[in-house]
């Protein structure tokens, strides 16, 4: 008899830990949290999300509420995007950068009301983002309420997601647009329902108080079972986001990377009047052009390119793999890598050093996978 998985030293448990253990999940420590990496198999969970639906516990993510008469302007000074331009009920992808332009974290910013925003940060960065926001909002008339440890986040993702969630909620999912959010109830539980995700599929993210997370999880799991919904761990979350060409902080993004290098320069609102942290450095980076660029690679030779493997252009080391796996949907090895700008052109043939050999890899456009619409 093996001991029931428990959080190891210092790592936090979500309110759904006992459910994960009962479902037979293999648990890992990720971003300071004890999280399910897989329940049955990464491949079967991945396919469930592509073909039917998956249920994710994302309660490790950080939820930072910013409220006040100048909340939008205060966030505009703290982040690289323009939150005041968001309509109420809409969201956008954003980043918080250091004064030198390096990425502290990538975020989703939701406008809940004229004077109220929700900023969702990655688990491992949530404390740092919370501290940085608190400091940057210090001179404003807005208040930061870090509810990361009191808020659970459960996502339903996949083509069947709308059909599963729709009958359970008073939020009209037919009119809830991609990157929109609405306040309502799910199975009677007060919730924020957002049409966002990290899988490349249609889907929803449901924010509730920690105390209601277990009930919400059980109801969604039962309601979705007839449609083929299964619980999905972080392993498939990673392969799903990689196929969808979405960056993972710590792999594609870090303090030494600018948004321009990551191909995310479009989110930086240099045209907007007014200062924000990192503006000068980012303006210079935009002017100078990136020293390296994030590309998609399809490995044509044998072997799987992994994080940290060198990338070669002939005998010149051009860069490094940031994420790689065998694509469950495409059946071939895929990777993202930083390479010299001259080697980033679609169709360029490079080589990935895999152990003691090199495998040919072709530069391909991102994403690797787009759902049919």
């Amino acid at each position: 008899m093996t001991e029931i998985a428990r959080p190891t030293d210092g790592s936090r448990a979500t309110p759904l830990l006992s459910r994960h253990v009962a479902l037979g999940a293999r648990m890992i420590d990720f971003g300071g949290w004890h999280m399910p990496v897989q329940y049955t198999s990464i491949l079967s969970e991945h396919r469930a999300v592509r073909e039917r639906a998956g249920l994710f516990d994302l309660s490790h993510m950080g939820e930072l509420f910013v409220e006040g008469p100048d909340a939008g302007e205060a966030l505009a000074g703290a982040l690289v995007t323009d939150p005041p331009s968001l309509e109420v009920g809409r969201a956008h992808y954003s980043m918080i950068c250091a004064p030198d332009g390096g990425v502290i974290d990538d975020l989703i910013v939701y406008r809940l009301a004229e004077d109220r925003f929700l900023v969702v940060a990655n688990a491992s960065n949530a404390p740092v983002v919370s501290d940085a926001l608190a400091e940057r909002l210090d001179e404003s008339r807005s208040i930061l309420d870090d509810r990361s440890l009191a808020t659970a986040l459960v996502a339903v993702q996949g083509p069947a997601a709308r059909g599963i969630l729709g009958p359970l909620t008073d939020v009209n999912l037919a009119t809830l647009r991609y990157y929109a959010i609405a306040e309502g109830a799910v199975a009677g539980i007060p919730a924020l329902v957002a049409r966002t995700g990290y899988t490349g599929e249609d889907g929803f993210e449901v924010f509730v108080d920690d105390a209601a997370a277990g009930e919400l999880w059980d109801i969604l799991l039962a309601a979705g079972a007839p449609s083929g919904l299964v619980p999905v761990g972080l392993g498939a979350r990673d392969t799903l986001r990689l196929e969808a060409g979405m960056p993972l902080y710590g792999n594609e993004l870090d303090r030494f990377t600018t948004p321009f290098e990551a191909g995310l320069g479009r989110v930086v609102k240099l045209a907007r009047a007014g200062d924000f942290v990192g503006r000068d450095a980012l303006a210079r980076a935009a002017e100078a052009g990136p020293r390296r660029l994030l590309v998609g690679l399809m490995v044509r030779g044998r072997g799987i390119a992994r994080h940290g493997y060198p990338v070669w252009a002939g005998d010149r080391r051009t860069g490094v793999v940031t994420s790689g796996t065998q694509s469950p949907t495409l059946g071939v090895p895929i990777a993202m890598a930083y390479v010299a700008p001259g080697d980033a052109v679609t169709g360029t043939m490079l080589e990935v050093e895999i152990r003691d050999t090199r495998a040919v890899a072709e530069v391909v456009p991102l994403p690797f996978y787009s759902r049919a619409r």
Partner: protein
Amino acid sequence: MIPSDLRYTKEHEWVRVAGDVATVGITQHAADQLGDIVFVELPEPGRVLEQFATFGVVESVKAVSDLFAPLAGEVLEGNASLLTTPEVVNSDPYGAGWMLRIRLSDAGQLEQLLDAAAYEALTAEG
């Protein structure tokens, strides 16, 4: 669950000896721990392996692991079917998921491997 007629390494390979030919694979426990196996890299026939030397690599969706030769000998063949259907290692690790056949150079090395009871005790430690 753990076949009693095989010998095992602490690194979770199994070996079945018939005459001077040994068949090598990885255990169900190892396959389960790795998760979905998507790639197996095996040596060419003719390569001579030392006992406990790495002979190849197995990759799951999530991770890469080295493979270790339980016994010294010359590689007779790798399981070519794993090139196209590596998932067989998950579904049938002691049968169709075998990896390597080698001609033994020293059958006495078997004594250095674990029997089923000792291997079971090893995996029970977690």
